């Protein structure tokens, strides 16, 4: 039992921050909620599945459960953020001056808001790829979809974000 707890501790320390980051981005910020859901994911793992999963599967199980918990939260709040006007400001080069910290924080906020413009499945696939470096196969295992769907979702997410970024950049240039 002590060794199981040790393994669980290692898994927790390895993936809890990543899971929090994934959920924060998925939820559009809301760090306390993200931590709550991350804790609940680990709690469910410890209570129901720990010791029964094949080696290496615990991580995918966690992300799958975390995503499902986040989807439940979406259904409760049904909130989406659309702030195209701020996308380009977040993407423009930032001068290194005393306001840099403020703009960095703003950029972080806008990344979250930008991600919220994507459909949930595209957002999830993109986050798992960019933040967790999961392969298309592994992402498909987490989301219970095919690799081809993962590939298409990731491409569409990137294309969508790039397009909005480009539109806003053109608008900003024409305004100046």
């Amino acid at each position, binding site marked *: 039992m002590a060794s199981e707890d040790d393994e669980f*501790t290692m898994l927790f320390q390895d993936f809890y921050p990543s899971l*929090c980051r994934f959920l*924060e981005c998925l939820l559009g910020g809301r*760090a306390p909620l993200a931590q*709550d859901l991350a804790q609940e994911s680990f*709690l469910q793992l410890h209570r129901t599945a720990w010791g029964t999963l094949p080696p290496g599967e615990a991580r995918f199980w966690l992300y799958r459960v975390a995503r499902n918990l986040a989807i439940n939260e979406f259904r409760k709040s049904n909130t989406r953020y659309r702030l195209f006007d701020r996308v380009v400001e977040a993407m423009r080069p930032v001068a290194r001056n005393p306001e840099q910290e403020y703009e960095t924080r703003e950029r*972080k906020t806008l*990344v979250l808001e930008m991600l919220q413009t994507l459909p949930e499945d595209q957002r999830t696939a993109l986050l798992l790829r960019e933040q967790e470096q999961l392969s298309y196969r592994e992402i498909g295992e987490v989301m219970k979809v095919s690799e081809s769907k993962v590939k298409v979702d990731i491409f569409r997410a*990137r*294309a969508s974000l790039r397009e909005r970024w480009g539109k806003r950049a053109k608008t900003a240039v024409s305004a100046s």
Partner: protein
Amino acid sequence: MSCSFTEKISSLIDGELAQAEAREVERHVLTCAECEQVKTDFLSLRSQIAGFETAANPAITNRELNRILSRGDRVSARGLRWGWSTPAIAFATMLVVGAIVGLIWYQNSSNTNPNNVVAHVASPTPPPSVERNDQPQPEASPKEPEASPKETKNPEREPSAKPKKPLVREPKAGEQFALVTEPVDPIAAPERVRPADAQTLTAIHIEKSETLLVAFRNVRLNTATSDAEVAYERKRARQLVQQNMILRREADASGDVQIASLLESLQPILLDIANLPDKPDSNAVRTIRERVERKNIVPLLQVNSAALARALDD
């Protein structure tokens, strides 16, 4: 994005293209300004998303981990809390089981035949085991006849019968009764953890038995009439016999070998005392006393009583 290669750029930067296809796309990017810009923008998005820092700090992480490991089986993070606390449920369960056991005990006590405790012991209600005056044969036991056809029908059960020490014991010299038991059927009586209420009842029973045997040991023998006054001890023994059988059966079922063995050793002594006549012969009393001393029953009861008390306190 008009170029047909743009979708492949997404897979290229993810390392999901086959080697040959990846080289082809790389060569194309070198010659296509649009695809080169797409690749640059996709990588920029990646740096923005991957560079996102979570608000989780080490102090929060350790606190969450400790909460999960220490209380993970009983407490949930959100939305999964029970309406009743687990201790309340356990207490309610203990009350219900205790009431049922007490009711059974009361019913059995009220039907006791003062002239033949053993005959009542043979009543259908509890025991898998039977004590008889002079017939250690099973015909008085309601279960014994079933045992034979069971064993006949399912002989494969015998080889798979329990790995625990056998409970069958031959009557020893000086004993009035034989203890004939059946092996516990592991299929019919699966092992389980003894609930706290059974432990409580067992602890109380052991303490009462110990008190009885100490009192019996101190019974004054009338040297003039060669008899002894044991009415109180006999009455107490009759009350304890039923409870002893119930608790021994429960201990057998739950796999508590130590308690089952103790209660098994105690059973014939309780029966002997319970079946003493109104004015027993001093020699009969001495015989029982000697058996109690020889089996070291009283110290065993004291040790187990203390152990159960500690277990219940925990």
